[in-house]
């Protein structure tokens, strides 16, 4: 039983891992929130993450500048978001089909372009140190390090993170504020529920939805940059590893609300972080299969949605292109 009472280093490692793992999820989840609250379903989060990760890594290697690399990641993701927008908003295409297409396009394009540029079978070389954003010493470091092992723990968890962690967690209250305290947010929520009401109120449905889709593009760009510039150092084929879909699951789990989205992402990241610790652990004489732990986020969504958190009501007009009634 002693194994189950974690020591300080385990707590630090788990918390740190959870925060780091939650960051790309949370950014993608909030991206989905903007898009889906406006009534545009976004199954292409994964694709946008991939293309952003690839663009960030490539530009980082070529320029050596972290800032330019992040901007490139955002630009690439936003471009893909706009493709989705043109297909779904302007041409009223099927949002699911468009999202799936975005995913395939990004996966293939990153591999082909990566191979053409670096000839390494789709992956990129290591990022130079100048283009990495994986945290480091802060102003508080000397002080905290002087405070023994607990100070060191605080330093590791709170101040030794990449800038993306802070951006992601700051984006949560910011998104809440935008949604519920600004004109844009109110219109965004309205257009996802009843676009005709927005239209008759003299507001452009198309304009609103494009802005929402662009918000999603920017956030997915940051999510992808987190993967290739902070959690890893360079692009690896299909490095999104389904995070875009887990983010969607978290979004449903959170019923499309920002604060709940944060907790959902933290929960999923925690499960992921404890994966390696649970591996090989025996419960009642059975070894917990690692596949079960990996499947946990999905199982949780299914089980919890089925009974515990009640019905998750999607934005009513979600998935439906807006056509003026004849």
């Amino acid at each position, binding site marked *: 039983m002693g194994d189950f009472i974690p020591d300080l280093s385990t707590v630090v490692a788990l918390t740190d891992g959870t925060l780091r793992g939650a960051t790309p999820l949370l950014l993608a989840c909030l991206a989905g929130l903007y898009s889906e609250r406006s009534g545009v379903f976004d199954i292409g989060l994964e694709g946008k993450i991939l293309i952003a990760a690839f663009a960030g890594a490539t530009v980082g290697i070529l320029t050596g500048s972290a800032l330019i690399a992040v901007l490139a990641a955002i630009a690439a993701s936003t471009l893909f978001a706009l493709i989705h927008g043109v297909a779904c908003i302007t041409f009223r295409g099927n949002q699911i089909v468009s999202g799936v297409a975005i995913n395939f396009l990004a996966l293939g394009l990153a591999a082909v372009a990566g191979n053409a540029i670096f000839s390494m079978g789709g992956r990129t070389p290591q990022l130079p140190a100048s283009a990495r954003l994986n945290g480091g010493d802060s102003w508080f470091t000397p002080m905290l390090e002087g405070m023994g092992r607990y100070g060191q723990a605080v330093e590791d968890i709170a101040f030794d993170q990449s800038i993306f962690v802070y951006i992601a967690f700051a984006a949560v209250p910011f998104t809440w504020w935008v949604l*519920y*305290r*600004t*004109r*844009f947010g*109110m*219109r965004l*929520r*309205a257009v996802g*529920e*009843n676009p*005709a*009401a*927005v*239209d*008759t*109120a*003299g*507001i452009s449905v198309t304009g609103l939805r494009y802005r929402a889709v662009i918000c999603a593009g920017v956030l997915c760009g940051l999510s992808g940059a987190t993967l290739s510039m902070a959690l890893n150092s360079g692009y690896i084929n299909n490095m999104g590893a389904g995070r875009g879909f887990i983010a969607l699951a978290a979004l449903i789990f959170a019923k499309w609300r920002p604060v709940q989205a944060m907790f959902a992402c933290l929960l999923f990241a925690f499960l992921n972080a404890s994966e390696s610790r649970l591996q090989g652990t025996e419960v009642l004489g059975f070894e917990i299969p690692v596949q079960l732990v990996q499947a946990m986020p999905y199982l949780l969504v299914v089980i919890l949605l089925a009974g515990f958190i009640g019905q998750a009501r999607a934005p*009513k007009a979600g998935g439906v292109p807006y056509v*003026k009634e*004849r």
Partner: protein
Amino acid sequence: MTAPAIQLQGISKSFGSVHANRDIDLTVEKGTIHGIIGENGAGKSTLMSILYGFYQADRGTIAVDGTQVTIRDSDAAIGLGIGMVHQHFMLVEPFTVLENVMLGAEGGALLNKGRAEARQELQRLEKEYELNVDPDAIVGDLPVGLQQRVEILKALYRGAEILILDEPTGVLTPDEADHLFRILGQLRAQGKTVLLITHKLREIMAITDDVSVMRQGQMVATRHTADTSVEELAELMVGRRVLLQVDKGAATPGKVKLEVRNLEVVDDIGVRRVKDASFQVRAGEIVGIAGVSGNGQSELLEAIAGIGPIASGEVELFDISGEPTGWRPRHGLGHVPEDRHRMGLVTKFTARENTILGYQRDAEFGSGMFLDRKAVLEASKAQMERFDVRPPDPSLKAANFSGGNQQKIVLAREIEQDPDVLLIGQPTRGVDVGAIESIHRRLIELRDAGKAILLVSVELDEIRALSDRILVMFAGEIMGEVGPEASEREIGLLMSGVRAEDAA
């Protein structure tokens, strides 16, 4: 003399080959209530949508307060002081009343300041026009009558001087409709101009100053309401004399054909939709169920038809000799569902395929796995001829028929099976006056041929014209039974939940 509030000249609009509006002139004086009446599909809604910037006219000019304008979108219309209350409310259901009113007129990028101002303005409007609604109530929780008030408030909040109401009373009880008319009167007294679109002649006579009649996309006449009559307007609408009364002799009820005992229906979320309903329907009579839409009539009808679940109670059918034959879902009953698009037809199927929906296993239409396509075609042709479906083309998709003809297809299918008991929901919803007449005549013929008919309709006039007995439902309960000669007031009270003994 002040310039008219609205002056339309030569407005035309086509959708493909359909002329929705043809060369329309209309003058609406300031400070009046102007009715626009016409059958479904006469082009009223299109015309108003042009005025509100939803569509652009192909030709013609619009002048507001004497100044010629172009109305490119709803924003422009709002800017000109035009407000619209749509037939299907344009409300965001999870939002509060206040948020709905503010939407599009938030008064700044942040909501806080605008919210306080909107609250104040809302209070002022509520006082001035008798439009009481709780600003913090969630709109989706409000009854339709109040939702409509929110729509009116929305328009007034944006400074509307001209208010267009599209079929505003379709969803209201007679009482709520009266309240609405009082509000409209108040608006007129304040110098606002109201355009009231409706197909109900009674409303036109009750409230308007002037009335314009549309028929097949054209404006056929404009009259001072005081100088015209219901008969004249009806004739103008249809283009020929219409019988507003259904000609029928006295019923000769025979044996009981359908009996419902203590029927209860509970919906998915546990709400009792039908409470302890018991009644009988005899051969040769029409029993009408009146009530404001949403008071359990639909659930009752569907339960008897075997589509909806029955929580408790019994439904029994009887054969010719009066012996009970029990009840099996969808057996021995003809059912014309309330919503022909959702239940009565597969609109993407051809008329021919719709002819056999639900009866596709009958020996008449084939054997085993295969359909006898020729038999189906013959049956469809014959039905279309007998029920005067136009165009009589069995290969046309159901969606391409007009509402009245779609309804005839459904009626024909159910009646041709020759059931003893017919359940009929909203037989003339969205059907034009000409077709209403023929459907009504057909139902009376069926009654006289000894069928037992249970009729559900939200059109009180229809219930009164057709029924031999009327049951009134409110909140899932049968409030009472009255004869067809009962006054509208009497039925209206029952519809709003007041029993005869309470009202005395």
